[in-house]
């Protein structure tokens, strides 16, 4: 959700009326973005707290649940997201240097990586929901002991990775919005705040996945029969 993308044009093309200097406006926008990212940390933090508590209460169910995770898809997804972070960072750098063409190409590569991530996530979800009936709720099937506790594991798996995927979709939307305006030459060395904030948002979503990956995929990978 990018914040005040300036549109009003006044004596300095992109300076909003209530800011004194361009530098003050940029720093304000970045600080606003960081405060927004803090609210996102606390939003995901609530679920991480639930994860930590249930892992403490139902450790054996957590082991069984995570054995059902697809280790390889998880690792590939992590690599995909890290690459998308690289291209996003390079895109922000290109905007600052004013290279319009490379900015647009890098942004498009980032979008492709994002869609690749969502695709892999879709495959995983299809595997869990359709073939193995592991979507929590009445249709949940799980052979083996303490079924209801494993269902809690899957509730958290789908809740946390689901919200992460939702933020990824918003991210892809944002980056394509920025790519379109970059292609029209809206941003450059004189004005790159929206690109930078979108970059911050993208990197944040990547960091959330950096923590989701070990917590869900690496718990008891070694117990795989």
């Amino acid at each position: 959700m990018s914040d005040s993308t300036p549109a009003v044009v006044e004596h300095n093309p992109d300076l909003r009326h209530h800011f004194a200097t361009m530098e003050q406006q940029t720093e304000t926008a970045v600080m606003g973005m960081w405060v927004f990212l803090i609210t996102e940390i606390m939003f995901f933090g609530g679920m991480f707290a639930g994860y930590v508590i249930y892992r403490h209460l139902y450790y054996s169910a957590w082991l069984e649940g995570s054995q059902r995770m697809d280790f390889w898809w998880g690792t590939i997804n992590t690599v995909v997201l890290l690459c998308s972070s690289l291209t996003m960072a390079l895109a922000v750098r290109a905007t600052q240097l004013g290279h319009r063409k490379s900015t647009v190409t890098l942004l498009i590569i980032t979008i492709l990586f994002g869609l690749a991530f969502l695709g892999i996530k879709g495959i995983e979800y299809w595997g869990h929901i359709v073939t193995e009936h592991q979507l929590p709720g009445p249709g949940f099937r799980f052979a083996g002991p303490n079924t209801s506790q494993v269902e809690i594991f899957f509730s958290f798996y789908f809740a946390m990775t689901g919200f992460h995927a939702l933020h990824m979709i918003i991210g892809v939307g944002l980056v394509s919005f920025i790519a379109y305006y970059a292609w029209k030459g809206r941003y450059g060395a004189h004005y790159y705040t929206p690109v930078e904030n979108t970059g911050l948002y993208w990197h944040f979503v990547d960091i959330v996945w950096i923590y989701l990956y070990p917590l869900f995929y690496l718990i008891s990978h070694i117990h795989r029969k």
Partner: protein
Amino acid sequence: MLSNTFPLWPTRASTISGQVDALFIFLLMLCGLMCMAIFVAIVVFAIRYRKRPGHQATQIEGSNAVEFTWTFIPAGIFLFIFVWGAYIYFLERTPPRDSMDVYTVAKQWMWKFQHTEGQREINELHIPIGRDVRMIMTSQDVIHSFYVPAFRIKQDVLPGRYTIAWFRASKAGTYHLFCAEYCGTNHSGMIGDVVVMEPAQFQSWLNGGGPMGSLTQTGEGLFQSLGCSTCHRLDTQGRGPNLIGVFGKPVLLEDGRTITADENYVRESILSPAAKVVSGFKPIMPTFQGIVSEEQLNALVAYIKSLTARPSGAAQNPTFQSPAASKADTTRQR
């Protein structure tokens, strides 16, 4: 329209109520004094320093000394109150060993009590005076709360686990029992009476209750009929741990943690057995979720608790350690 009795102080009917009232009266006086001091100061300043011709306000920046005094003095008083309150809470949360157990099942909008001697009651609880009573409570649906104002005790009753409340009645009579946690439509109707009787009276009430057998006997019957005894043998070592002398003692688990075997552990091992498997055993016990009702669960827990008291003539000193005490690798499955 107006009821005749108009009490201003709840009756004191349990040993702890005296201490709670003492702390309450102390706080009442302390805070009453402080509020009066603030009110009087405001009124005096408002009048004495009111705006009138020839009167000038003198600017005072503030003084660190005064600030520190009214930071550390209140902090000190608060710590004292905290310690006193925590002491009472500690007493309320540590039931004595040899207390009389009453198993409680809270259901949407009624209380069901069951004494170990077998008596069942609904919305009525008869207890003897001067005896420590331990309420072992669970709920069948939502969160309720066992609240007897005269005893000054309250404890939420959670579904899915046991919560414990204890008291010792000190005054005979009939007292209110309320549900204090909002639990749906008839939350205000989920009330009852606690009848405190002289020990002799209580004994005759107990005997007059009809030959339905004590809770532990029903528990033993269930232990046989549900097939628990096939694995948990009481004389030798079966496929399940030998349960004699287990209750209240620490138990070493498969994943290395050690927990004390309280009511909640017994309940969790019956309803989801593979959650905390005893070390040296395999998670082969089937779950009894949905097979065993709350009342039957109470009976089984009472029976397992009674196993410690019975002098185990035949078996040697019952240690909970499985024979394969040493970590033989064969039985541990990685």
